[in-house]
């Protein structure tokens, strides 16, 4: 890699970006006494006690498992339903298309606090409280509109001639969509998958309202680090470091889709 002004700017940004995360990592390897007693750039006595606690205490690690289950469900539902819808919005004029498109996004605009109670009532009516699918469905409220919007943007970047040529060549819609169209918008699908994962992963209010024990998310478990004796900073930092890992894996898997972008010449 050449050292240019461009690279230097980007490296400086990455450095600043990593500082708070480094500080979290630093805290996670210390005891509470060490964290609160003095300033140190590196942990003086490295301890893995915080991590061991998370990996051995089922009330902790089950939080991660629950979150991963409902986030994966949500990601799958959002992508599968949003792909055809985004195609419709990008290719067709139909009754109420613009209103519908904007209405979808309005579902992200409501302040959660007062909506939690009716949400709880709705999901208890269907007997879904404390199930993974309840959280996955509830998170569709903000992830499906986002997925439709992002995918529509990428699909509109693909020339319509590609569709027309394929249909003239005798492709049926499902086969055209899966084998020709989807590879064209790989970058868009990569970004969408990551964003669905991310927003569902960090959402706390709805997830906490709809669950009690069996599907309790990790973000809610983390609020337990507040106890009578104050906050368990080291444990919280270790849990914070571990919440980054699954998402980092997701973006690692979609990185090629992101970086490759537009692959012309399939048709």
């Amino acid at each position, binding site marked *: 890699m050449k050292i240019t002004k461009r690279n230097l700017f*980007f490296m400086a940004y990455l450095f600043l970006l990593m500082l*708070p*995360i480094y500080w979290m990592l630093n805290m996670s390897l210390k005891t509470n006494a060490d*964290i609160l007693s003095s300033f140190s750039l590196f942990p003086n006595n490295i301890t893995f006690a915080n991590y061991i606690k998370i990996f051995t205490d089922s009330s902790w690690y089950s939080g991660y498992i629950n979150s991963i289950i409902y986030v994966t469900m949500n990601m799958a539902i959002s992508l599968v339903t949003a792909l055809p819808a985004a195609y419709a919005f990008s290719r067709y004029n139909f009754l109420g298309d613009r209103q519908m498109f904007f209405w979808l996004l309005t579902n992200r605009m409501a302040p959660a606090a007062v909506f939690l109670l009716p949400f709880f009532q709705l999901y208890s009516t269907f007997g879904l409280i404390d199930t993974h699918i309840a959280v996955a469905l509830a998170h569709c409220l903000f992830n499906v509109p986002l997925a439709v919007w*992002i995918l529509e943007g990428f699909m509109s970047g693909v020339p319509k001639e590609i569709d027309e040529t394929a249909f003239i060549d005798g492709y049926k819609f499902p086969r055209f969509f899966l084998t020709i169209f989807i590879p064209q918008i790989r970058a868009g699908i990569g970004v969408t998958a990551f964003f669905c994962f991310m927003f569902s992963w960090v959402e706390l209010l709805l997830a906490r309202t709809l669950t009690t024990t069996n599907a309790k998310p990790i973000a809610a478990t983390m609020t337990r680090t507040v106890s009578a004796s104050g906050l368990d900073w080291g444990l919280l930092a270790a849990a914070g470091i571990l919440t980054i890992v*699954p998402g*980092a894996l997701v973006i690692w898997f979609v990185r090629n889709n992101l970086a490759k972008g537009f692959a012309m010449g399939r048709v």
Partner: protein
Amino acid sequence: MDKWKDNKAWFLVLPVFILVAFSAIIPLMTVVNYSLQDIFGPGQRVFVGLEWFEEVLADRRLHAALGKQLIFSGLVLLIEMPLGILIALTMPKKGWAASISLVLVALPLLIPWNVIGTIWIIFTRPDIGLFGAAINGLGIAFDHTASPIQAWITLMLMEVWHWTPLVVLLAYAGLRAIPEAYFQAAKIDGASTWATFWYIQLPKMRGVLTIAVLLRFMDSFLIYAEPFVLTGGGPGNTTTFLSIYLVKVAVGQFDLGPAAAFSLVYFFIILLFCWIFYQVLQNVGKGEKS
């Protein structure tokens, strides 16, 4: 691009419509219901019409919170959008450097919001936090719990640190989706870097940037957990944003009616701004050749 006219496209949209409407419509109706009633307890409620709305709209503390909220969201957009685009432009385009950069840039987005606030409490503490200690080391007395200006600066830094990556990722994906042929053509024409950006990259990113502006506006306007944890709305009321005030009304005063009316007003303000942004971003620069 001319679109095909066909109402059968509704069948492609139907699954999404059902899925979203399931979670959206009944809770919204319920909140509208609350906002028109005075609720004393289970089964004891009186219809009060628009009384709560009148009360909410006349609330001076709400006006103050709204003012702060508008300044906050305005600053967020003004800082994060240009910065995010700039970073996306300088990011490595391929190879291992691109992969690692993508993963690292995305990291702040993946931390639950309440944890972000908590980590920043320590990070900015002058005695044991890297940021606080560094600022103090520069000879500036730093304590965001006492000074409103410093509380705002700290919140903005945290917000920019946390959310600029979202703009970067969207802009980066948008840039990667531009066919190579455009750049070759620009090269043959001898276009400068700036001209390439202004006439090719920026117009081609319109879609993703529209989403980025709307998302950043909505989410920063609804921001709750991070400032609540970091500053608790203080010092004084200087960082009491709309959602923090809303929760005070809803939980603190345990008054469902006014809180519901507040929520709806809040919702309509966001809706109005998003609609304006959407219309403007759809049409800006459409007259020029792209």
